[in-house]
């Protein structure tokens, strides 16, 4: 399913873009833009602005998140930044600080 994996000892400082799922177990700083799903696993550390279709976060994310479909903050994740997405799920145990925008049009 997920073709791209950033391993736990990998550090990327820069920009990641692409059309497929991305799993982050390591550290990414900079910017991530995908047309598919981003999975930040529990060992993953992201200090980047994120622009994807789906985001699932179990690790740490610092940065603004824009998702066209869904953002899911799992238990024990730690997220600092603004989230903009039509669907946002925050699980029990998740730590989050920032604004939430579900882009609701009245």
């Amino acid at each position, binding site marked *: 399913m997920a073709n791209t*994996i*950033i*391993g736990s000892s*990998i550090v990327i400082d820069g920009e990641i*873009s692409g059309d497929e799922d991305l*799993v982050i177990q390591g550290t990414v700083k900079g910017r991530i833009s995908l047309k598919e799903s981003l999975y930040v*696993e*529990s060992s993953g550390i992201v200090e980047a602005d994120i622009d994807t279709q789906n985001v699932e976060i179990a690790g740490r994310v610092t940065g603004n998140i824009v998702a066209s479909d869904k953002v899911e903050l799992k238990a024990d994740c730690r997220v600092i930044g603004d989230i903009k997405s039509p669907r946002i799920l925050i699980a029990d145990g998740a730590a989050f600080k920032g604004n939430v925008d579900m882009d609701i049009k009245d």
Partner: protein
Amino acid sequence: MAVKNQSMFSNNTVVGPSILISGRLSGDEDLTVRGRVEGEIVLSHTLIVEESGIVKANVEVKHAIVSGVVVGNIRATECVELTPGGRMVGDIVSPRVMIVDGASFRGRVDMGEAQGPREAQERPATKPSYTAYAPRFSSALRPPSVPRPPLRSASPPAPLQRPAAPRPMPVQRTVVTAPPPAVASPPEHLPSDADEDSADAKPLPPEPPVLMDVNKKKVVVKKKK
């Protein structure tokens, strides 16, 4: 979690075919590139650039295997391997470099100075020793050769051989006064050959020549008749 996930994904970092990473990538594990990476790659393990992979970066790794495209310099502490599908433009610095038939490469290769010169120095050292032995065997065939006289006159083995030869010589030649000059002359090639011939001729000539001559003469005479 991390360990389980890594085992699930074969403990590899993979950059998928549609992914572009631009910037600096560093780490302590294997990296497989099927997409694009631009910028810089620093790993303490292996970089594998697969056929669909494109790397435009300066690379510092332990081991690099290139089946795709690499534009940039690779510095490897162990080995750089260009497989048949590999294409690379840039310089390679690595103690071991393998470029397979079918791979295309443009750039400089530096395997370090440690290994190359040592081998180069050993080879010349063995050659002189071989040439030193060669004249002894070829001496009979090439008496006029210039290099040989100095070697024999200066080399210790020559005097060692002389005593061995003279010992039988005097015994056979005790009656004849000629031997002493023959012994003194051997250091020079032409004389030595001449002396040997003369020495052999003195004891042997009387018996065989006579028999041979008699037989030959008889046969010849019969045929003539």
